Structure formats: structure tokens, C-alpha cells
């Protein structure tokens, strides 16, 4: 954890230097894959089962 960086640009630069592209790509692919799986979970069973949560959190859809 670099403690000397004091601007937002520095933080982004540090993150870019610390995380190598392959790791970033892997993380991105994982997130994309999970998101894709979640889209499939939009089938009636999962969607209806989360009904209370969506109402409770005030998220779109019905």
C-alpha cells in the first residue's frame, strides 16, 4: 500500500503499475462471466425468488 500517493491520478497510476494486465484481464473476464451467468438467472425461478429483495431495495423491474 503506497502511502505517499496523494492525488487520485497517482492512485490510478499506482493501481495500473501494481496490477499486471493479465491479472486485470482475468478479473475482468471473471466478472463478465459471472454477469453473464446472472443474466441467465433472470429466468422466472430466480427472478421471482428475488422478488421481495427487489421491492425492498427499490430496484427497477417488478
Amino acid at each position: 500500500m503506497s502511502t505517499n500517493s496523494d492525488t487520485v491520478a497517482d492512485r490510478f497510476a499506482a493501481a495500473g503499475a501494481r496490477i499486471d494486465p493479465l491479472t486485470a484481464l482475468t478479473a475482468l473476464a471473471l466478472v463478465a462471466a459471472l454477469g453473464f451467468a446472472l443474466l441467465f438467472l433472470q429466468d422466472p425461478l430466480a427472478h421471482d425468488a428475488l422478488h421481495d429483495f427487489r421491492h425492498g431495495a427499490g430496484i427497477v423491474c417488478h
Partner: protein
Amino acid sequence: MIDRLRSGVAAGAIAGLAYGLFTWLVASPLIHHLEHLASHGGDHGHDAAPAVGETATAVVSAGGGVLWGVLLGAAFGVAYHLFEPALPGGALKPYVLAGTGFLTVSVAPWTVLPPATPGMEPLYGTSLRVPLYLGLIVLGGLVAATSVLGHVRASRTRGRGAGILVASLPLAALGLLSVVAPPTLAGGGAPPELSAAFRWLVGFSQAGLWTLIAVAFSRFDRPVGRRGAGSPTATARGAD
């Protein structure tokens, strides 16, 4: 960065557990009751029978509440690490970031698409509402960033009062949007007071979720920031 992400996920898990419990004990029973009331006009059956039972819905929704907390917490941790230098407030930085998160993810979409009280019907299809929702999240992020940056800049050059004034301008614009925006929900047998109360409940529960994330995060973040001896890893108690 990874430390911050870890703190964020731990904080999100704790806040999510509380929120899941809230969903289970408060939101679910209330929603079922309201829906029962709303569908009472049409004899006794629900007009659209859900694919799963009410118990399963309650359990999965509570679990969804936990995951929601984890997701927000993870995003919170990364955003905190990246934007920490620009945040005002010293020790209160996590709370400022939680406020911007609440504004971005919840309040901004609600200005046009308010939380639906059970029994209400949306006027537009999901093909319009989902892009609108996502667009409003982007707008909320811009409003929050403008507010915070404006506050920092104005209070540096012109003092605290000017800073607060400048910070509130984008928020007022967002409030104006909610007044101007056309209604997106229709009907519902529920009286307006009940509907308003339900919306406040939703609003307060989301605000509470963000507050809990900020509280837990600032607790976990202290040892990381000091880079001191082995940080007490927060194992979220699985007691639900």
C-alpha cells in the same frame, strides 16, 4: 488496493448480513401483506402466481440482501482506495463515500423510477426501464462527483459556507428532476400514505446499509492504513 478490497468485502458482508436479516424479518412480511391487500379486490387469488413459494422467496431474497451488501462493499473498497485523496472530511471520508454511493446507486434512479409499492404496476416495459435505470446511475455518479469536487474547491477558496452551498447545488438539481419527471408507476390499491411510508422504509434501509458499510469499513481500514501488526481479519459471523 487488495487490502482495501478485502476490508470492503468484509464490511459489505457484515452490513449485508444485517440487511438480509432486515429483508427477512421486515421487508418480506410487509411486502407479502401489502400484496395480499392489493390483490384482495380480485377475489382471493394472486393475479400473477409466482413461480416459487413465499418461503423460498423470503429466503432467497434475504440471501440476495447479503450478496447485495457484499457487492456494494467490494465496490466501496476499490472506490475508496482510488478516490481517497479527493475525498473531504478526514476521518469521515468513508461516510462521504458512502453518501455518494447511496446517491449514485439508489437516490438518483429513484428520482425517475421510485420504489414500487407492492401492488403498483409500472407504466413502461423493462426494455425502457433498465437502460433508464443504468443511465440514472451514471447521472447520479456525475452529480455526486460534482457535488464533492465542488465542495472541496469552493471551501478551499471561499470558506466553509460557500462549500456547503456549492455541494448542495447538484443535489438540488437532482431533486428538481424528481419533481419534473413524469410518473412511471400506476395504480395500486394502497393508500398514498402507506405507499409513501413504504418508500421511506426502502430509502432508510438502503441508507442504513451504506452507513453500516462505512462504519465497518472505517473500523477495518484503520489497521491497514497504519500498516501495523496483523490486521484482525474480520470473519463475518455466519449467524443469521
